């Protein structure tokens, strides 16, 4: 380790050479290389974290640039993790970067996260947030949560030393999520940098065992009034008992490219004898009640274990009652299988029968 490079940190009496060595030996995974992930990665790289994992399948787009200032206009369309790791490697050549040009999924989460000491949840959707949480609980790894809404940010240290988890902060209910995911909301360019940097500080504190982390506290920052709120959160012991992942976590609609078709189009295809795999993702009870000819029933929750039953060489059409579950199924098939063409029947069976 180049001690001159880190001399200002080593000089801190609470920090010193031992803390710097802890950083050097640590492995941090950053889930998401967007608004939160880029500033977080930038500073974890700067302070001397030895190994940084970056996972994101997204590419750089024009509307990313106000807040993801590591990226240039000339890089639009290129992989975020590739460009980010190139730039960070130039800034600190001693860092070991591991890039995953993919999204975190139930199939890869445990394998990837098990290689790291600390995880930073810099994702932009609820499905991934619950997936990060559950994986970290299963593997007993601490993670640092950060989230944004308009001019507000939230930060907390979760699953650390028996403290609260994401499910203690926000229990998952059966009500479908209607809070916007991904880039759908507006956000002022500077806010993610602030929250991502707070996440970096919390990661550093966990690794070097200095100060007091935000475990058991949800920090909410309102930048419009520059007010900080620290809300005490208690752990629900039930949430620490997770031993395996769920089969499916909600895949945000901004990912993948599901093409919607209407009932008339499906009817035309069937009349014309077009070969398709027609997959009904409703429950077996719903399926036995009403079904389309030549449709195969694989309930949404079984898709992960049963998708191999689908002939993916044909265009796949997913259907359900209203078009909502089938959209989740279509997204899942696009992201997680070799399906080339996936169509969702908009409006579902309700629009036919």
């Amino acid at each position, binding site marked *: 380790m180049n001690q001159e490079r880190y001399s200002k940190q080593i000089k801190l009496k609470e920090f010193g050479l031992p803390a710097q060595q802890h950083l050097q030996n640590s492995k941090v995974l950053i889930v998401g290389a967007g608004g939160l992930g880029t500033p977080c990665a930038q500073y974890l790289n700067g302070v001397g974290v030895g190994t940084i994992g970056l996972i994101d399948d997204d590419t750089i787009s024009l509307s990313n640039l106000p807040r993801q200032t590591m990226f240039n206009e000339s890089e639009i369309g290129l992989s975020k993790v590739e460009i980010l790791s190139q730039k960070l490697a130039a800034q600190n050549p001693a860092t070991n970067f591991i890039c995953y040009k993919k999204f975190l999924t139930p199939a890869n989460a445990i394998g990837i996260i098990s290689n790291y000491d600390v995880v930073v949840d810099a*994702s932009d959707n609820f499905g991934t947030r619950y997936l990060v949480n559950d994986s970290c609980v299963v593997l007993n790894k601490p993670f640092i949560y950060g*989230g*944004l*809404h308009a001019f507000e940010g939230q930060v907390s240290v979760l699953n650390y030393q028996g403290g609260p988890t994401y499910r203690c902060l*926000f229990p998952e209910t059966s009500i479908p999520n209607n*809070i916007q995911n991904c880039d759908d909301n507006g956000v002022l360019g500077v806010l*993610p940098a602030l929250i991502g940097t707070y996440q970096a500080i919390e990661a550093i504190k966990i690794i070097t065992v200095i100060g007091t982390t935000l475990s058991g506290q949800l920090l909410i920052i309102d930048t419009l009034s520059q007010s900080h709120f620290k809300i005490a959160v208690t752990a629900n012991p039930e949430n620490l008992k997770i031993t395996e992942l769920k089969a499916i976590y909600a895949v945000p609609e901004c990912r993948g490219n599901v093409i919607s078709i209407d009932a008339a189009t499906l009817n035309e295809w069937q009349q014309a004898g077009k070969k398709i795999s027609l997959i009904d993702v409703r429950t077996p009870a719903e399926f036995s009640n009403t079904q389309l000819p030549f449709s195969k029933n694989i309930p949404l929750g079984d898709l992960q274990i049963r998708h191999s039953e689908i002939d993916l060489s044909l265009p796949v059409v997913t259907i359900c009652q209203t078009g909502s579950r089938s959209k989740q199924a279509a997204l899942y098939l696009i992201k997680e299988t070799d399906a080339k063409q996936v169509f969702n029947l908009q409006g579902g069976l309700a629009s036919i029968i």
Partner: protein
Amino acid sequence: MDMKIISFGITKDITGSFFLDFNAGKNPVSIAELKEGLFDKFPELRNLSSLSIAVNNEYATNETMVNSQDEVALIPPVSGG
């Protein structure tokens, strides 16, 4: 007497302001009852998949009792990253 409620994230968009004076109908009131009162006045709150409530900067449960001197905060999850 009115209770002081602050609304974070999307709940601020639903209630229309960060600070809100809310008449819960009785004093003290349980969080469960307060939530129902808020849901009646702001039906969109009912559609949130998760809504946590803090009282005096501490997470509360449905059974927590609050009175008009307490500061209540509505905390929804935020997805942005």
